[in-house]
């Protein structure tokens, strides 16, 4: 530890910044893919359901690492253009984690009580209005806990990019390890760094979840005590809708 100079620490901290960027960009792409594919899988036309299902199966069933190599090395040969390693990595991670995420979206949509859809039909809302005004707002809070899981998976998955030479935490650690000639200190440090990042991510997602639940009239998770319990009890008694909106 004592041998870790300020310069080497600098390498690791730059790596943290790159990892954060990778996570944010891949998550943004992944979330977009997840919503488009997840919603498409509930579409009334079978061809839309089939194509979105096919996408999900293919990208869920292929290794993100191999996909990354493929985008970085094969795509240039096939189409003649070359992505910088950072964007090749974001593309590969976003497309494959988006495939996992689409299942979360689909599951949460399926968990909204069918009666909500019927109430939307009864008021003559169009299918798009039913989706955006009724189904997605109610499915959204259900998506957050599994999405949190997936985000942490994605954060750790970004370590794959180090093999393309992108300077993330893991890449920085390899450099530091070469400089020091020993593995134990630096890998212990980055273990903790990944943990701290994952922990921060979880705190953010908890806050998002509380806000989302308050937005559909479910009391926040914390801080209201007895009142909240009464509310929950009343919900299950009177509206069945929440009790059936279970796991995604």
């Amino acid at each position, binding site marked *: 530890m004592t041998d870790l100079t300020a310069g080497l620490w600098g390498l690791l901290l730059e790596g943290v910044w790159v990892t954060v960027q990778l996570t944010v960009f891949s998550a943004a792409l992944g979330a977009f893919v997840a919503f488009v594919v997840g919603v498409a899988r509930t579409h009334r036309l079978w061809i839309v359901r089939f194509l979105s299902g096919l996408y999900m199966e293919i990208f869920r069933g292929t290794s993100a690492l191999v996909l990354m190599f493929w985008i970085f090395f094969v795509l240039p040969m096939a189409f003649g253009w070359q992505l910088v390693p950072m964007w090749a990595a974001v593309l590969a991670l976003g497309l494959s984690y988006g495939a996992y995420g689409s299942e979360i979206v689909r599951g949460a949509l399926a968990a909204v009580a069918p009666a909500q859809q019927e*109430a939307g039909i*009864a008021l*003559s*809302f169009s299918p798009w209005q039913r989706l955006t005004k009724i189904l997605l707002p109610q499915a959204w809070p259900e998506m957050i806990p599994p999405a949190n899981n997936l985000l942490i998976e994605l954060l750790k998955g970004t370590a794959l990019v180090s093999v393309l030479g992108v300077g993330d935490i893991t890449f920085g650690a390899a450099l530091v390890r070469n400089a020091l000639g020993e593995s134990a200190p630096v890998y212990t440090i980055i273990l903790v760094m990944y943990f701290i990042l994952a922990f921060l991510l979880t705190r953010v997602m908890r806050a998002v979840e509380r806000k989302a639940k308050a937005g559909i*009239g479910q009391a926040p998770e914390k801080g209201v005590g007895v009142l909240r319990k009464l509310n929950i009890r009343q919900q299950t008694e*009177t*509206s069945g809708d929440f009790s059936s909106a279970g796991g995604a």
Partner: protein
Amino acid sequence: MSAEKNPSTTANGGTNPAVDGSELIKFDNVTKRYGSNVVLDNLCFDVSSGKHVTLIGPSGSGKTTILRLLMTLVKPDEGTIKVAGDYLSHEEKNGKLVPAGERHQREVRKNIGMVFQQFNLFPNMKVLRNITEAPVHVLGLGKDEAEQRARELLEMVGLTDHIDKYPSQLSGGQQQRVAIARALAMRPQVLLLDEVTSALDPELVAGVLDVLRDIAHSTDITMLCVTHEMNFARDISDDVLMFDAGRVIESGAPEKIFTDPEHERTREFLSAVL
């Protein structure tokens, strides 16, 4: 009350010009099957504008299916349904009747409002928005006008104080009254009521029924009502249809059906529920 109204669903029943007695709902040889189970069997009946019709019968006799057909939640296997002169289940294309598309159904359905057994308010919207959302985004009403309309309806159902609450903060009875206001905000010609008090605690039933009685007696809206509240049915109905095995086996004025039914099945059913 109901005594001064004409009990027949087909005869002209009103002095009010809005109640012109025309056929507002018309089922023509409608058959609905689920697998080999025939839920509605060549059903023909019609409801005149402004009438209050109650459907009674044992569970599984097809009452709720009629409401679900009118709400386009299910499609008939055979026969046609007309609402306000337009085909609901079908549309006319090049002189031929074809199963209706989503857009056509939505247009005809705007004449119909429905109140559900389980209320089905939108939990992600506060009370006011539950009521204004469809008038604004489906009918294209201005926001101010829709809110004005919502406030009047909330006053009518006695919930002005709860305008800014989420459905989960209301009791079942209050939620159901909001659901009634939400359906009426679309100014439908027909209101469908699907066992609207069945999910309520007994002490909350009266409040909801009072609101519905009030609507039945003070407006000319046409009501089609599935209920097990026989006293309510008797109070508001012009006509009662007794269903069994997907057919109307008996129909008539409530006094007649409830006191002196013709059909053995009706007698059995009424003695079981009254």
